[in-house]
């Protein structure tokens, strides 16, 4: 019971964590990426579609990342080169992604959108670790993408705080004029950040369709990208904080399965709404954007 809850917590937390780590890098460079939901959605769709037609999980993963990177490239042209409003551009990207996946879904899989499935990514059991009671199956008998997500937490933390690239990233997000004056190339840094985030959002989407559900339904990302945006705030723009927040939100999403199994009198809609309510409540209690990069959301124009 508790073991199942922990396992689904990690399963629900993984796509949020993957995309939130990407969003962390993007936001540290000064860009607020509302299009993250769309990137996850195209990753989910084009990943499973490529895997379905090629029979190869690897090709599916590549297609997922490529689709999300392409979408983020479009966003980068808009918000980096053309310096348009990041909220408006990101929202447009989300709407576009909903349309693209919907149209191609019906094109490939019929007007009715008949359910199609693939053989999902296999869980990899890490030997005796997987047999640890309670936490074993949750942490050590999961798909490779879960391990990737967990491993990325320290990697991203170190890159941001301890490497030259991390320093450039933070410079672009805190004082873009100063970074540019030093010849760091704010446009390049933000482009790179969006490309990295594209890969991570693509993997997050691929996890949803290729490891978690094994099928695609329209709008399958269901706001997880937006939850990832909140996770970055709740995690205070810090990789470790983001990992903790992802598990918290994953737990809130997993709760519905646990409590439905127990059979409570509480309507199921309450559990479906819980992660979103929790986001608002947590943000209300934490308040403030004091830890946000100073130039977050501000278009930068080289003068």
């Amino acid at each position, binding site marked *: 019971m508790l073991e199942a809850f922990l396992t689904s917590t990690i399963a629900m937390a993984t796509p949020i964590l993957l995309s939130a780590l990407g969003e962390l890098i993007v936001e540290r460079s000064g860009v607020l990426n509302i299009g993250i939901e769309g990137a996850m959605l195209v990753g989910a769709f084009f990943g499973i579609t490529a895997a379905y037609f090629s029979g190869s999980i690897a090709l599916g993963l590549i297609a997922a990342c490529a689709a999300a990177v392409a979408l983020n490239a479009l966003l980068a042209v808009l918000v980096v080169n053309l310096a*348009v409003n990041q909220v408006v551009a990101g929202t447009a990207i989300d*709407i*576009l992604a909903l349309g693209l996946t919907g149209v191609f879904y019906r094109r490939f899989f019929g007007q009715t959108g008949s359910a199609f499935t693939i053989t999902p990514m296999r869980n990899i059991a890490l030997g005796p670790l997987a047999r640890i009671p309670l936490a074993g199956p949750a942490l050590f008998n999961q798909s490779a993408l879960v391990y990737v997500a967990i491993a990325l937490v320290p990697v991203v933390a170190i890159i941001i705080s301890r490497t030259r690239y991390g320093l450039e990233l933070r410079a672009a997000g805190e004082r873009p004029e100063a970074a540019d004056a030093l010849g760091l190339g704010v446009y390049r840094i933000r482009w790179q950040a969006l490309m990295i985030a594209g890969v991570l959002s693509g993997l997050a989407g691929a996890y949803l369709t290729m490891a978690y559900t094994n099928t695609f339904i329209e709008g399958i990302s269901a706001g997880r990208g*937006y939850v990832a945006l909140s996770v970055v705030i709740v995690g205070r723009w810090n990789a470790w904080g983001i990992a903790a927040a992802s598990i918290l939100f994953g737990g809130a999403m997993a709760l519905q399965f646990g409590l439905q199994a127990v059979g409570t009198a509480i309507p199921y*809609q309450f559990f479906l709404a819980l992660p979103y309510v929790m986001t608002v409540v947590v943000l209300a209690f934490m308040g403030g954007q004091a830890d946000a990069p100073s130039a977050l959301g501000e278009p930068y124009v080289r003068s």
Partner: protein
Amino acid sequence: MLSRRCYELMTARVSALYSGAASQFAAAVRPLAALLIAAAIISIVLIALGASPLAVFADLWRGAFGNWLATTDTMVKAMPLVFTGLAIAIAFQGAMWNIGADGQLVVGAIVAGAIGPALHGWPHPIAIAVMFAAGAVGGALWGGIAGILRARRQVNEIICTIMLNFVAAQMLSWMVHGPLMEPSRAFPQSVVIAQDAQLAFYFEPSRLNFGMILAVVLAVGCYIGLFHSALGFEVRALGRNRRASAFFGLPIGRLTVGVMALSGALSGIGGAVQVSAITHRLFETMSPGWGYEAIAVALVARLNPLAIVPSAILFGALDNGSQAMQRAHGVSPELVYIIQGMVIIILVAFDAVAARGLRPTLFGFGGSAAASSDLAAEAGDA
């Protein structure tokens, strides 16, 4: 009220820019050009999908304006887009990034749909007024939450309003499966609202109704409020420069909550009109994403409330025509989302390119610079 001096400070770098009719004309033409380019790209997509663009667009037109019934149905589809489009325009003018018009519309519909069945025997005009007021209260509450959290706790209103959209959707689902479900409990839908609360003024024999007149009246009201009142000036000043507005003593907190509540109320009325005039009860899906589509509507209208009406009719025509298009050509209705997304992208990109080197404005570069120069002129008069 802002003094002339403070406004000069706020717009010091914009003074000489974007005056004159020529550039205003260009700013008005760009949405049309954006639509044309979107149509061109869609044509390529259609060819790739194996359909003939000309035939598809012809059917789109026929479905939207082919006869009286199609034309009035386009108006009916445009109606909620006027309400939500106005909501977005008001909020964006104040640089409140309200992405939650969808949730605000849904909550407005829920409140109206909950009160509606209880209005038996009420005089029709009063019952209708109560319905609309209920929608406004529901929407204002939902938008107001985000406003208060922004003003008091610096919670990012973008994320807050998006989250509240999901909460509203689940609340609606619960309502039609639970407390408000029809007595037979056969379908997930609510009790039918009282006859007296069902909007009776129709342009027979269509579904077009008084709601559209209300929408146009509200559009005029929003225009006057926004461009010809002190409060509207403050909202726009807040939108241009929040920090300077605070510096010059504008009540930032109250304006933030007020703008979000008003924006929510407009969407909420849209929800109530939908219940009162069209559906007469609540269903699990009250909105097909009008709150998001409204962003495209508002941007094409350059955030000008008067222009929201034709812009909403344009997008209503797209929605309405796409159904005919789907029947005739098997092109999926999601194509409309691609068009919406592309129109926004092309439009903001155009504005950026057209105004390269200008001072950053609400939409990057010069997106609403024409409006800024109006603002400066007004401050000069004051």
